[in-house]
């Protein structure tokens, strides 16, 4: 089995490591880097609890080897909060009660982030399609849809605030 030295940017910070070729990205993130916000929920790439962003794309990190992340930019749930300010998605999930046990939540938010980046004003149907690769057992999805709508509105309002003069 080959081993590889990798350099990866995660949440704007640099990480390096020596890993076996078969090390799954999710295990490297969780067990080695101790970014445990990303979770494991299945073994058939079905549940999406492990979803992170890789070069801006929502990615099930259990279905990628760490070595494939070499040189790439990753974002995990830990990167949502910036300078002590939570992201509109985090705020929306809290305001709309879109989480109960919290286990699917990081993956759900990362998928939602990518969705909103590509489609800032999605319809309910588009949201449901967009999160159909992320399973939740607790919420029945109704409030997750509302949380994403909350975040969409907030993010659009932030876009519309003109850069202040002077």
């Amino acid at each position: 089995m080959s081993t590889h030295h990798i350099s990866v940017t995660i949440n704007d910070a640099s990480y390096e490591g020596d890993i076996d070729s078969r090390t799954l990205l999710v295990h490297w993130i969780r067990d080695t880097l101790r970014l445990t916000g990303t979770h494991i929920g299945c073994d058939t790439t079905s549940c999406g609890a492990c979803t992170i962003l890789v070069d801006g794309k929502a990615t099930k990190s259990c279905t990628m080897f760490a070595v494939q992340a070499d040189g790439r930019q990753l974002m995990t749930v830990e990167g949502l909060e910036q300078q002590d300010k939570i992201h509109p998605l985090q705020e929306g999930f809290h305001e709309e009660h879109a989480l109960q046990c919290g286990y699917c939540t990081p993956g759900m938010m990362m998928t939602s982030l990518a969705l909103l980046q590509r489609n800032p004003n999605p319809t309910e149907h588009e949201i449901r399609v967009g999160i159909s690769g992320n399973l939740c057992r607790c919420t029945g999805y109704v409030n997750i849809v509302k949380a994403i709508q909350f975040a969409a509105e907030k993010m659009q309002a932030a876009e519309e605030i003109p850069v202040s003069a002077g």
Partner: protein
Amino acid sequence: MIPGTFDYLAAHSVNEAVALLDRHGEGAKVLAGGQSLIPLLRFRLASPTILIDINRIDGLEYLHEMNGTLHIGALTRESELDNSSLIRERYPILFETSTVVADPVVRNWATVGGNIAHADPANDHPATMLAMGARIVAVGPESERILPVEEFFTDVPFETTLRPNELLTEIRVPAPVHGSGGAYLKLERKVGDYAIAGVAAYITLDNNGNVSYAGIGLTNVGQAPIKARDAEQALLGKQLNDAGIHQAADLAAAAAQPLSDTRGPAEYKRDMVRTLTVRALRKALARATGGE
């Protein structure tokens, strides 16, 4: 859940990938999107000695229409098709295929080339490519071959006529002509599942409204993707009316070789081929005549 051991190399060009395949032979497996391969590795159902990662190869992800042909780079992600206005507007059958592959997150990495090369009879693109009469570009160490997609699949699941030292680099789909239309319908138990049955139908009508081209492909109702030739033949040279549609649907159902499993009894799947063929042909006809 945890894969066995293997070596890993990333190729940075098609030539490099092909050279590696040539050197390592049957023990090598190409890693493209990985959304089918990696789960197999995690369950230790496949044990390659070396993975050749082709994701670092520049210039294999593209969608462009040129001289009557849509060229799809093998590494093009399903989500690219989902988000492409070219595909949605001019190739709705392809849009209807890509948007039902697995789920949207998997589609960010799953590739069109991989969906075809993996040759899982449950994959969705093969039926559509068969219906559209697509061609496959296979690059080997000495040469490049272009073969019709119907010569790419065999009657054995997960097997293709791609040689061990060849890489699938491009899929070529005929561009739509006036009077053509297609549709892909997939019946699934839930979003993200493989098809209970899937039908791709593509037709072209000549100036008199007779069918000059008919392609019908079936998903997951046999050991390999199925080209429903009798059904296609029955449509040619005639007006496409409901009676003809039903006759073709019966023939497509007869061409199916489904097995009973957790996605339904064989007879049900066969009935669904019939229903989906009717619906797909109706939709294809509507698109061909500008009705949709």
